[in-house]
């Protein structure tokens, strides 16, 4: 019996030491949580998990950085959870800037993301449109004249619709659950084209054994990693600036508005230093991601432009060709892209 009591005591002491938190007033005094709006396994989740140890390294005080996957409802659940956590600086989110912009533009976010505390960016990847070899689509002009099937995920649907409007093309959307499924369907010839961020496009086109080809990149300059892919302008398409504002996947880090200025500065500098750590850059490169950091002001400017473009784009375009009327009611209520995963 005594032995048991002793064991209990030891356990209690261990527990107490475990539970004790260092609190000398300096930030951070406890663990920091990164909310990821997706299930484990996607690009956002992977980047958050890669970042965590480096963030721990560059944050003052020895605290842990935890990952919390709050998936569902197109990232809305994660945004709500982030807002609910309050401006403590202990809960931050790795989110897709364009999807936040879309949610704002379609009235799904209660508070204006312009006011959030923007902390940094891990990457910003322009979108690449690819076509299948069997589709007969060889140029944006073909898209204008031909009827074609556009493989989309709910994250990519709004950008796909805006790009098609810029091209003056009508399309038949075919909806899938993830980028892998879309690419597979394209290889089988079930869809004619798709759009994804360039790392996904690069991998998929390279592995397709000639069945897929990148048509153009939706940015103003060619990509260093895909120098052979022309830009929209080079193909003679004059797209407005707004189109480029929504044609990327920007992985940004944010916290609710109103966190303490000192804590914010500490987070911003730690994220910036972690993102530039050569080892982190190397690991990201392994995963075929390119680190592109940005400061809070430029993130805000990008957000503003994207919100404006999504607000300008008519919701009817979201559902593609034809049957706009019937879906409009549903779409205006609840249109949402998920942050662009993978």
């Amino acid at each position, binding site marked *: 019996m005594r032995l048991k009591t002793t064991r209990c005591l030891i356990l209690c002491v261990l527990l107490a030491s475990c539970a004790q938190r260092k609190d000398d007033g300096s930030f951070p005094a406890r663990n920091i949580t990164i909310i990821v709006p997706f299930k484990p396994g996607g690009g956002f989740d992977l980047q958050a998990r890669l970042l965590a*140890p480096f963030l721990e390294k560059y944050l003052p005080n020895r605290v842990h950085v935890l990952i919390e996957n709050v998936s569902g409802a197109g990232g809305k659940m994660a945004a709500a959870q982030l807002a609910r956590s309050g401006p403590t600086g202990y809960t931050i989110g790795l989110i897709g800037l364009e999807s936040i912009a879309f949610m704002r533009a379609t009235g799904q976010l209660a508070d204006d993301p312009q006011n959030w505390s923007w902390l940094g960016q891990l990457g910003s990847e322009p979108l690449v449109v690819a076509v299948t070899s069997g589709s007969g689509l060889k140029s944006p002009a073909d898209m204008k004249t031909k009827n074609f099937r556009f493989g989309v995920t709910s994250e990519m649907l709004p950008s796909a619709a805006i790009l098609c409007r810029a091209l003056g093309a009508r399309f038949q959307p075919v*909806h899938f659950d993830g980028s892998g499924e879309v690419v597979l369907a394209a290889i089988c010839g079930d869809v004619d084209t798709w759009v994804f961020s360039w790392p996904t496009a690069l991998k998929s086109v390279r592995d397709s054994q000639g069945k897929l080809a990148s048509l153009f990149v939706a940015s103003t300059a060619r990509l260093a990693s895909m120098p052979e892919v022309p830009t929209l302008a080079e193909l003679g398409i004059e797209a407005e600036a707004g189109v480029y504002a929504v044609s990327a996947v920007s992985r940004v880090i944010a916290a609710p508005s109103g966190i303490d200025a000192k804590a914010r500065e500490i987070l911003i500098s730690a994220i910036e230093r972690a993102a530039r750590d050569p080892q982190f850059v190397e690991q990201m490169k392994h995963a075929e991601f390119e680190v592109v950091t940005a400061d809070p002001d430029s993130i805000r400017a990008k957000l503003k432009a994207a919100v404006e473009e999504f607000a300008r784009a008519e919701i009817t375009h979201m559902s593609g060709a034809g049957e706009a009327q019937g879906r409009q009611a549903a779409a205006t209520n609840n249109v949402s892209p998920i942050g662009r995963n993978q």
Partner: protein
Amino acid sequence: MNVWLQGFQLALSGANLFFLLLGTCIGLIVGVVPVVGPSFGVTLALPFTTGMDSATAVILLAAIQSAAAYGDSIASILINVPGGPGTVASMWEGYPMTRKGMAGTALGVATGASFVGGLLAWFSFVLLAAPMTAFALMIGAPEYFVLGVAALALISIASKGETVRGLIMGCMGLLLGMMGPDPVSGVTYRFSFGIPALEPGVDIALGALAIFALPQMVTLLEEGGTIARVEQVKDSVLGGVIEAFRRPRSLVRGGLIGWLIGVLPALGTSAAGVSSYLIEKKFSKERDQFGQGSIDGLTAAEVGKGACVLGDGITSLLLGVPGSVTWAILMAALIVHGVQPGPRFMTAGVLPYTVFAGLLLSQLMYFVIGILFVKQLVRIVHVPTPILVPMVAILCFLGAYVTKNYVFDIWIMVALGVFSLAAERNGYPTVPMILGFILADLIEANFHRALGIGFGSYSVFFKRPISLVMIVLVCLFVARPWAMKFFRRRREGSRKTTGPLRVKWGELYFGGIVSAVLLTFLISSFRYSSEVRLFPLIVSGTGLVLVASWVLTATRARRVKPPPAHGSGVPVLFGIGLVGLYALLVPAAGFIAASMIFFLSVMFLSPTPADGKRWKTVSVLTIAIGLFLLSFERLLQLNLPTGLLW
């Protein structure tokens, strides 16, 4: 051949064996906890692997995945609570065996069968990789749709003779699966009824837990005593392993089905276990023993799951399309270590072969460790239910919360669980419900996808050869019973139906509840656009027609009073109340405090003979639960909900 040797050499060298063992142990522990399964274990381990060399990382993760997928069976068999969506079918034969005092045999069968499934899939992986990926490429949306509709026919096998009510519950399952983002464009959140937390829909793992675990907990509390109905348990795990090996037909049938389902990226382990089981039920020689602890049934369910877990890897590694969430994470781990899954995977040096070696070794490892591990766990069938049930309930709540980190998921689990309990008590089979739930998205999403692929024309289903052949087969299968009846009637004349029907009042009341739910879904469907509401309308309409036809037959039947409740434990309503209070307490008092309060209240309220040691036992156990949860939170770096008390 040389690369194979190198791969195995690398996998077996240095610390890798240690990590293989470590991963297996972690996986077993993660697997035993309900809901929490392979994907959870692999996600947690992923950050620790970034610093390791690539072979070690892959081996650790593969070991966790294999062992966790296997460990899921343990809770299913021992306490009738699904360890994960893949092992739902294992409950149906495994638990009756446990009741009969054959827990060890059942666990042995599970170990042996899932190991054989793993081996089957592994060898097919290695030998048939190229034709398999070609096959997966031929199956597109139209084929998946037809496959899903064909699988719905399994409802009739799953209904235990209550075909109409089975179909009604199948409709309920389909509707449950249709909640959340619509599969046409993903932009309408259906049936959220204004509750934001319902917008993502109900997770399949959570649904399985709710439908089966909660009724089981309440039932156990009601019965009192212990799980094992017999005092002496004299059976051996090893004997069970041998039993499984002695059933080559069940192994081959279940293994093939599980493996095929694994190869198809859109289908996962939840479909594999259930399908293998139900098809075995159709073809097994010991059909009549199904539901009472048939070893054939358990073998089929387990071999199907085991084959599917590895089969999922084929498309993941060779096509780059994740076959399951777990494989998506394993793929992420490979990517971090510089190997891209995809058609060129096998050309990436030795590492791919190390991956294969690791997968095989982790199968062997869980087979050996599993036999030793489950021997210890068999004891829990002798733990008195007032202690066991709250512990299991706490684990279920934990599992329900950590998959998505919503407190609301706990409430969904309780609400759905109460519905399922009411269904079960009133003769509405719940197995068709989970089947409908699993198939809902497959059928609906692929129907609309197929139409999109065919530019909106229905001819797409008939123009593709595989799809056409499948449609013809399904039609023949469906028409067969009628055709046979037709011919038989000619020869023998019509047979009379068996004696007068008896119906309990509760069955009628429950029919009313079901039709109210169906009507709610039907009415709310009209708010959506034509494509988005198509399937919900069809399903809820069909459900209503079925309920109406059943009620018509039932009103003509004799109504009887329900037999008085049996059991020496907590009354049903009281049990439900306790679990409901626990769910409400979680956000109010915090997860850990609520769990301790729940445990204390069950211990004191359940009528067990009082003895002197009670206070001591109770307080020690309560503290132990608190400590367990706290260390779980700390070690695994989770955020459990906090409240006023903690």
